[in-house]
């Protein structure tokens, strides 16, 4: 915990992006049509109404309708469909 707070201070002092220093996921949403998650740890569950994605900080639960995975790579996941809800389960 102390190490983490030190890292945060260092990132602030050097004006470095937090997602790189703290290894955080970057989540980009395009309206409610597309959701791009970078720096993920894999898929836990996938159905057309719910997708759960494993992240460093826990689990991200995406709820919606007709959800598909437009693009899947080691670094990023692109979710397409109608996103209704986005929730962190820590």
């Amino acid at each position: 915990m102390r190490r983490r707070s030190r890292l945060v201070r260092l990132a602030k002092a050097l004006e470095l992006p937090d997602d790189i220093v703290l290894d955080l996921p970057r989540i980009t949403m395009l309206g409610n049509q597309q959701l791009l998650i970078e720096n993920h740890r894999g898929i836990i569950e996938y159905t057309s109404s719910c997708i759960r994605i494993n992240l460093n900080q826990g689990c991200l639960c995406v709820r919606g309708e007709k959800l598909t995975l437009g693009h899947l790579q080691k670094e990023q996941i692109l979710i397409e469909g109608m996103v209704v809800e986005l929730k962190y389960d820590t």
Partner: protein
Amino acid sequence: MTRKISSYIKGAVKIKIQGENQERFINLCISKQMQLWGVRKLEDSLFIWLSLHDFFRIRDAVRKAKVKVFVVESYGFPFFLKRLKRRKILLYGAIVFFIAIYVLSGYIWFIDIVGVKNIPKEKINMMIESSGLCVGVRQEKVDTKKLEKEILLSVPEVAWVGIHFTGTRAVVEIVEKVIAPSEDKSPGDFIAGKSGTITECITILGESKVKIGDKVQAGDILLKGIGKNNEAVRAKGIVKAHVQYESFGESLLEEQVYSLTGNRKFGVKINFCGQIIDLNQVNLADFIAYEHEVIVKSIPSWRNSDFVVEFIIDVYRELEVDTIAIDEIEAKKIATREALAENKVQIPLDAYVVAQDFKVIDTDDPNLIRVKLTIETEELIGMYNQYNKE
């Protein structure tokens, strides 16, 4: 776009995954740096698109996740090749088609002759056909330079000829000679076309009958067509004279202007197979002046039927007459403009205006302004006459 092209070249497969650990299968694939797209879940099955190269690497992941894999769809060039290998006749057909196109494009299939106006096209056609340029001949076999020379030599009316090929079309471009109209060299006198006073007289051929300052009438001989040895020649020279033109213009001091009052009356007639029946007669007694327009509305003819019905609508619009007084200066201007317009018709374009004079002429009518316009020009007055032996 580039992703689509590369996936087409590499080939892509759509697979159906059935089993319990579908998510694990995805994670295992991702961990092996595979690229997946179009992942969709329908009921218990998971559909995934992946490249053909990655498809051969999923065996390990399938075993670990204990899922069943079915190929649903395939796309890309490798599959096209595979299909082509099975349908050899199609492949041979395509090859034969391209060879045929290549071979046939070396022949001449059309001949265009352009630029001919007076020379008959058939003549040129016959000539080029006999020289070997005809439909169905290979382009290499035609010696265009030789053919061009042949046409030039055998058709005297041709000034230039060019033969070139555009695809399977041979274009024979021909430029015809422009033969200048032959000059009339028959003996003749140079006579005055207009009456005037001579200002310049230069004799090139013949005998001069006038000198500067002479007054001549139209038809008078200016240069006689007689040579030094009394032989008949065609007289030639430059004779300029001052010529006067007169014209008149008139304008009234008051003008009548018609304007619409807005009152209208309509008369309707029907033309039924040539018989005109009056449906609404118009009484025009209360209109002092009117303008009349006829509108014909016919039913569109159907299948060449002779049954003709037309509605003829007469529109009468009432006009009001106003008399506007014009002042004297304005009236003079109008009259002068009229006179000038009349004069312009008579004066040739190459004439040089020397003097111009306006004169207001008294008339019996006090309401009328009349202007006389006199224009004096210097111009060439000579023209040719048939030779007179006297």
